[in-house]
């Protein structure tokens, strides 16, 4: 038996209509879609081959042939940004997956049990929050060696307490509701209730947090790559491109400008998307507008 007490009077199409009227959502959605499309297209086509070095074309400014110019090896910046998008998206997305996969069950469990289990889990959370995330990520990548996989781990670990906290707070608000009581009366275990009734009701919260952590993951990956701890050459990454650009700022500023703009636009799009979803689905934030 499933209980559908909490369904709002809104239908899917009414939510969709509202979504299309929300500027933040539409802008964020379009930007995110474009970035994703760019990453996908890079698998089949890029303007130039990013693994081929053409020294004769090195550090050329933006032109019709190379829209965003070329780097110190004569590689096309636009092509590198396209391929770099794959790396940024993959790292941030898997890191969000790790955070959700571990954090949400932990948070839901803490809320379902409360008492000592809850207290212990939250204290561990406090402990992780006491470590500046980037510092720990640097230590993790230094221990296990630099590379995209270890960057994912380093960022993913710090997503865990974030999702645990959000899931716990959301679940705590759901547990005292009547339909939970009804489910209990129907003889369901707290695990069943958590999965069937609590999780669907905090899905929005998790989705919004997911887009925020996705954006933060892109920034963190760029930071790690900039320090030389993320994806290793010849795999292009946005952070690494900025590192290469730094010493060539005077002769080739475009090497720094365009990869940075790629990061800004991606993060901006994801944040707008998150804000938009929160606006559309959360009545509280709507009232505040």
């Amino acid at each position: 038996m499933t209980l559908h007490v909490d369904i709002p009077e809104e239908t899917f199409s009414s939510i969709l209509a509202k979504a299309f009227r929300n500027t933040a959502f539409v802008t964020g959605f379009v930007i995110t879609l474009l970035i994703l499309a760019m990453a996908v297209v890079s698998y089949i086509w890029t303007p130039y081959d990013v693994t081929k070095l053409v020294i004769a074309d090195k550090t050329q400014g933006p032109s019709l042939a190379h829209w965003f110019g070329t780097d110190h090896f004569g590689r096309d910046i636009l092509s590198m940004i396209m391929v770099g998008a794959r790396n940024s998206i993959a790292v941030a997305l898997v890191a969000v997956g790790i955070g959700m996969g571990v954090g949400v069950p932990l948070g839901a469990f803490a809320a379902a049990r409360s008492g000592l289990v809850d207290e212990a889990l939250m204290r561990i959370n406090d402990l992780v929050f006491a470590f500046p995330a980037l510092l720990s990520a640097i230590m993790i990548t230094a221990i296990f060696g630099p590379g995209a996989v270890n960057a994912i781990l380093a960022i993913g670990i710090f997503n865990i307490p974030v999702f645990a906290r959000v899931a716990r707070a959301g679940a705590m608000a759901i547990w005292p509701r009547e339909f939970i009581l009804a489910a209990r009366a129907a003889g369901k275990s707290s695990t069943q209730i958590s999965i069937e009734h609590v999780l669907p009701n905090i899905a929005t919260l998790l989705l919004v947090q997911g887009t925020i952590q996705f954006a933060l993951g892109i920034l963190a990956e760029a930071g790690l790559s900039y320090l030389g701890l993320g994806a290793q050459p010849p795999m292009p990454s946005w952070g690494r491109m900025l590192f290469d650009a730094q010493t060539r700022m005077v002769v080739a500023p475009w090497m720094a400008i365009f990869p940075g703009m790629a990061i800004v636009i991606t993060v901006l799009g994801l944040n707008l998307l998150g804000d938009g979803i929160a606006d559309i689905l959360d009545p509280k934030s709507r009232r505040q507008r």
Partner: protein
Amino acid sequence: MTAYLLKRLAISLATLLLASMVVFAVLEILPGDPARLMLGMNASADQVELLRNQMGLNAPMVWRYLHWVGGLLSLDFGRSYTYSVPVIDLVRERLAVSLPLALIALALSTIIAIPVGLFSASRRGRAGDTISMGAAQLGVAVPNFWFALMLIYVFAVWLRLVPAGGFPGWGAGAWQALKSLLLPAVALALPQAAILARVTRSALIEVLNEDYIRTARAKGLPYRTVLWRHALRNAMIPVLTILGLQFAFLLAGTIIIENVFYLPGLGRLVFQAITQRDLIVVESVVMLLVAAVIAVNLVVDLSYAVVDPRLRSRQ
């Protein structure tokens, strides 16, 4: 209230203790023998063993942990493997760069964010609000090290107003030193200010809907007074919470920013120590940073009581 404070203090101390164990354990599993690193690849096994004994690396783990914690408490952090000087001297020297940098950045971010948040909240839904919150949305998305590169390009390469990097030291005169901290501080402050402005705005909007704001307006107080004296004070708690959380971001941010500007600060020290496997520097500095984060969060907790008298009287 006292009970609450004592509980927060106990939790902070327990977190600190656990953190020290984690840091110690993580560095235990870090590959690389410090004695071997110091002596180089040509040293004989006997020489390495001798040095290991001298450095106390062969003692039991628990003993080494207690020795380390004891050292931390008495401000004796040991000697750096790579610099061959006491770690405490290194830390003191680097803090002279990082601490002013962090404080200037924090001050800048607060000075920008609070007025922008106030402005936006009081013009909710109007053009000024849309523009400033759009700018904040953009500010949140900018990676601080890229922003730093752009600042270097404009202010150091083009306009030649400030140095592109490096630090002359406080001995070169306060103005020269401050000038080289200016761009790094701005780069650190901007994304923080953007987040803080958004939080200030939404906290203010919540407060401005309260009855006592209407009462204050109704009894004829000017809007400005109501905004600064009544609304801002009541909106301070979420703002303080975020300020506390941002401190940790700021510390981590200095690692990257100090690398961009070649500043001899704590962040650059810990980054270099990690890559050079100078474990004793890594564990001391990481512990110091973690202690700072925990202490700031405790201070934020305590400051709630100062800002909100209701919390003071509550038993």
